[in-house]
């Protein structure tokens, strides 16, 4: 999305493509934070 509108975003943001935001489970978000991510953005 940010790419298609030519928006800049920090290189430390790592996107993971999901088919629907409804698919995101709390355990996935907690796993990311547990492994050292500063935050998780669910966007769609």
């Amino acid at each position, binding site marked *: 999305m940010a790419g298609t509108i030519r928006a800049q975003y920090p290189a430390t943001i790592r996107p993971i493509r999901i*088919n629907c935001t409804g*698919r*995101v489970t*709390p355990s*996935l978000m907690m*796993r*990311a934070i547990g492994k050292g991510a500063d935050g998780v953005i669910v966007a769609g």
Partner: protein
Amino acid sequence: MLEAARTPGLNIYTYSEVEDVSGFVGNFKVKIRKNARYVNNECNGCGSCFDVCPAYGYDEFNEGMNPRKAIYLSFAQAVPSMAQIDMNRCIKCGLCQNVCEVNAIEFDQEDEVLELEVGSIIVATGWDEYEPKTGYLGYNKYPNVITQMKLERMLAPNGPTMGHLVRPSDGKTPKKYLFIQCVGSRDLNKQTYCSAGVCCMISIKNTKLIKQHYPDADITVAYMDIRAAGKDYEEYFTASRKEGVKYVRTNVSKIHEDPETGNLKVILQNTLSSTGIKEFEYDLVVLSCAMVPAIGVEKIGNILKLETSRDGFFKEFHSRLNPIDTKIPGIVLAGVAQGPKSISESISQGRAAASSLARLMGKDKYRILLIRATVDKEKCAKCGLCELNCPYDAISLKVDGAEVNEILCRGCGSCLANCPSEAITLRYYREPQYEKQIDAILEEI
């Protein structure tokens, strides 16, 4: 419409509403409520009851400009040609029953609910004219400010005035006309879209019709831009100008009425000349209002679970590459239900919709993607959370656990994110796949 009504195998239910739709492509179950007409199928539309009926209502087809009886034919070419009773107006005197030779009148008739099985659905809900707020450009405040639809009915030979143009205030034939374009459209505070040039072309057509009936009529069209894009449209616009119709590029700022004559004083500025703001007097002002989604379209949208675009029209699969289909297989759009368009474009889309479905229904098999949710029934605790959270009604709780309808399922995964017992998996998008992605990304930091 009459020809369609005579076609074998084609059933038309008029004066009816869709109440509920369930199922999926190829196997839709539709519940239709046929509203009670209080007249049975014996009616042949002879009309002898209209003459004796003592109760009156407003003729909705003629924009309420003339009275009709409480028992009436909705409009001259109605299909089927059957009378109906407006129970809000009927006084149940029974005079119609006395004159009816075929005993068609049934005061105790009730709504009938039909259940149909259909393979696919075309949504063609059409449009309604935008109704400006009372007082906006004098609408509903001054009788001589009318909408395009009212003018259209007045100009019709079978309309309330038999094709004669009269002013609502005094019944005189107007001499000076002003058409105001883009009422309620191309306006950041109202509809932001342009109604696809339809209102431009209707105005041009009506100026030509008025000129035909009254060659000495003085007609001005106040426009923002004339959008005459289409085959022969520009030539039609040029023909109207050649007949002496004045086109003024302007935004009308104010309208007020001369209380003595009922004439309208309009303040406007021709933005293509340096004449400044001036006041002009007109006998009749016609508002060319935007096309908006038909009244009640939200209900159909909720029943069919269709998305709507920002403008309120139904959302197509892709606005440029596939404006016919919706995101739900087996449901397609035709005409203004999808967005404002002219008659010829509506016909094109109607045919495209029919062929899109013919291609789908002509095959014995229906292919789906494998990205679908699957349930491990051993793990399922039968809590029913998945059923509550499915936006497509694709998952339902059965005795032995949740069951996914693979045709309805779109593979969004809302069910598995909500499943407390982790009994649901989504093919190609399994939990360990994401876990590995997360781990790999966070390792390199």
